[in-house]
């Protein structure tokens, strides 16, 4: 244990080695992601350009388009061009609109972020207090009824996939009650339903995780120590139990938060939200491969960033995790 205080000379501070290790992992994952996105088009059986333009398209057009996309070069050359393009922000051209992919992404990404970030915030803001509250209320086998109600409600809500929830919300709140618009992102009220649809399931799962983790933390010796110091209950729960419960919660909740990145695709399609999600569905149908490739890359990077953020948060919350990873 004491070794951790003074790590062997070369390693420097545990924080530095953590940063190096974690950024290294991020870089490798990013490279794998980019390479996979590149290979995606190569893996499509047959000629993607022919597939995209249709059987009736004249041969000259197909050839011209192939040349424009650089598909006639060797694989290595294409790879090098692709990587070079990415460095300069060139994601290629959309095959249907002729617009640069980076431009399409620049147009659509803000709408997706406007949906995903508030949904993230709602999940965190709802799940953590709720999970903590129910852990405290039901600790040591108290309030069995409350526990049952909490568990069954969250299990049920988590079982409904976000796009089905979205449809149900639209049917009820938009069509029946007329409170919110059915689609689009024209004004503030149009954000309500998509954000709820996206956040409700993950919030339920996370609240359950927070409760279980808090319960197990409350059984720890250091909670008894905190109580022996006669701290008010508020401090025992918020200062001593919560940070420890959050570390385990984050480890498990990270995967769920990345799932929300993908969840936006379906929700956007329900609400005809002008974001990346509706664009990727269309472009898959239209076989606009460069556009799909670009958007897949953006989503993938989003996932990697969420994972990275979770790990950094973990390290801050629980300093042991910076060392433990070895």
């Amino acid at each position: 244990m004491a070794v951790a205080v003074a790590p062997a000379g070369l390693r420097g501070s545990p924080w530095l080695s953590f940063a190096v290790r974690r950024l290294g992992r991020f870089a490798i994952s990013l490279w794998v992601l980019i390479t996979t996105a590149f290979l995606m088009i190569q893996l499509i059986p047959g000629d993607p350009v022919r597939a995209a333009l249709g059987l009736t398209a004249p041969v000259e057009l197909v050839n011209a388009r192939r040349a424009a996309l650089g598909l006639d070069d060797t694989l290595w050359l294409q790879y090098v061009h692709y990587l070079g393009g990415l460095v300069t922000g060139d994601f290629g051209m959309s095959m249907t609109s002729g617009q640069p992919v980076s431009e399409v992404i620049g147009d659509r990404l803000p709408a997706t972020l406007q949906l995903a970030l508030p949904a993230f915030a709602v999940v965190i803001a709802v799940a953590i207090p709720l999970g903590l509250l129910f852990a405290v209320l039901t600790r040591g086998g108290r309030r069995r009824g409350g526990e049952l109600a909490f568990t069954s409600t969250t299990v049920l809500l988590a079982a409904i996939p976000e796009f089905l929830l979205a449809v149900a919300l639209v049917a009820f709140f938009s069509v029946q009650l007329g409170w919110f618009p059915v689609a689009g992102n024209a004004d503030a009220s149009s954000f309500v339903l998509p954000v709820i649809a996206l956040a409700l399931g993950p919030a339920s799962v996370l609240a359950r995780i927070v409760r279980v983790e808090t319960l197990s933390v409350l059984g720890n010796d250091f909670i008894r120590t905190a109580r022996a110091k006669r701290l008010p209950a508020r401090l025992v729960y918020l200062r001593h139990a919560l940070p420890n419960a959050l570390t385990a919660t984050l480890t498990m909740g990270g995967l769920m938060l990345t799932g929300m990145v993908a969840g936006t695709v379906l929700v956007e399609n329900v609400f005809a939200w002008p974001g990346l999600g509706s664009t990727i569905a269309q472009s898959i149908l239209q076989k606009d491969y460069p556009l799909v490739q670009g958007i897949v890359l953006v989503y993938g990077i989003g996932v990697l960033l969420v994972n990275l953020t979770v790990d950094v948060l973990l390290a801050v919350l629980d300093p042991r995790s910076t060392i433990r990873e070895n």
Partner: protein
Amino acid sequence: MAKWFAALRTPVGGFAAALLTLVLALAVFAPILWHDNAFAIDTDAIAQGPSAAHWLGTDDLGRDILFRVLVATRLSVLLAVLATVIGVVTGLVLGTLPSLLPRPAARLVTSAVNIAVAFPGLLLVLFFSVIFGVGTHGAVFAVGFALAPAFARLAQTLSASVAGQDFVSAARISGVGRMRLLIRHILPNIGEPLVVNATIGAGACLLAFSGLSFLGIGVQAPDYDWGRLLGEGLNGIYVNPAAALAPGVAVVLAGLAFNLVGETVAGVIGVRTGLRKLSPRPVTPAREDAADARDDAVLVVENLQVAFPRPAGWTVPVRGVSFTVRAGEAIGVVGESGSGKSLTGLAVSRLVEAPAVVTADKLEFAGKPVLTTPERELRGLLGTSLAMVFQDPMTSFNPTRRIGRQLAEVAEQHQGLPRAKAFERAVDRLRAVRIPAAERRARQYPHEFSGGMRQRAMIGMGLMGDPKLIIADEPTTALDVTVQRQLLRLLARTRAERDTAIILISHDIAVVSQTCERMLVMYAGRVVEDLPSAATPRHPYTRALMAATLDLETDREASLAVIPGRPPEPDRVPNGCAFADRCPAATDRCRLEDPALERVEPEHRVACWYPAALSRPAKETVTAGGAE
């Protein structure tokens, strides 16, 4: 298989099984029964809401939604199952491949799986559907392959756990080939959890597939599954919301059916029993000689009882304990584990939490009744005047906060010191307990401290206030002998400098008799003897404990003294003397009547019908202590 049936007999399991049976029955029979109804075009009722003729309305060709939803069960379930099979098989191959491949290739596969697992399933589905193309076939492969990484991970974890077991090692040593090892020994042992997870996976595939069809990437017209119906229904949601909701409900129910069946089977290992209604708590009558009340008493305990509700009734691990601690006095509480000594320590400091119930005829700390005063009023007093040192220094500090801050909390909370001042005080107290480089150490986390240092810091935490009493519960058990001695010296010094009383709870009678002037010997939740450390013990149990300790005079040729038998479980304490079964001097009276703790000398109380006579030396009487 027995486990599966056991799981399905629970209410949730039964519901899940019924639901799954219904879904599967619909998948088989619905297309046979209602195929024509689902395709019949009613030109009089195009895109209508629910009516008597069409319970869920019609689509924009005038086809009945209800029949279409029912008939779509087959395709939806079939595609989900197909995708699951592809996913599980691919995952199994990917997951077990590393155990067959040479090292570098194995590592490559493993890390590829690890990276893929980090991405959400839907993103993988979209990725693969680009490669496999739009349409039913492409979607089946896309959903299946998207499931594969998760299963590969599962197979890896499972087979790793099996591979470490003895029978696999034995097979490996006896020269069984890797392939054979995998097929004959590992796969059969991970089969069950894999099937359970595949069932859950089928639910996930069903949802993923409907999502894909909803996006228009999956099933193409004129075929239809629930996802496609949902997409079509959404377009006409203003006319007929039921057309969008019905397939949605179908997806959720079917998904839930697969999921619940899998989850209940997975969770069946722990059997839950309901909490029965509790009988009234047993009451222990005050049977002990009340320790004489003194003006300088720090702690007065009379007839303390701690009871826990258990499914079978109340368990009472502390059954009527009385003692007094005077200012500056050091008393030891000894006894085997389970004797209730730790619980007594927690109970007098009001740290036993519900559902346990603490009662006492009198429980006063520094003149204040501990049990009846509201917690808020006691907080300041207990927080500054009563210090606790717990057994395991490794787990008693919050791992996410710096040591200094954890000490400073006390001063911030109870003495109203500002942050910086409180921290200064913490550093000062760390110095007082001889932590070197206290300033720097205070900024470190618990994991950067050694065990002995943490225990010192714990004492330092107790010194943040002005403690009248330190309750140390096995403070040295987890530490090595040298550190143990330093720590006891530290406690003794603290006591001398501040006139602090100490309750030292320990199973080690030697440690206690060196450190404390008085001993409470506990057995089965009760004090059986209360004596000055220097006095000759008179209870057979105390004498046996003494005989079981080693010192310089112990005859090294003689066999080591042991007390035969074990103490009674707290829920099975006999009516008579709890020690009777192990006592060499027990008579019928001991087995029938429980002796009270009675004063035999001014400073000596014993609970025994036949306390040893004073004249006889301790070590001779207990010869029963021979090895069993």
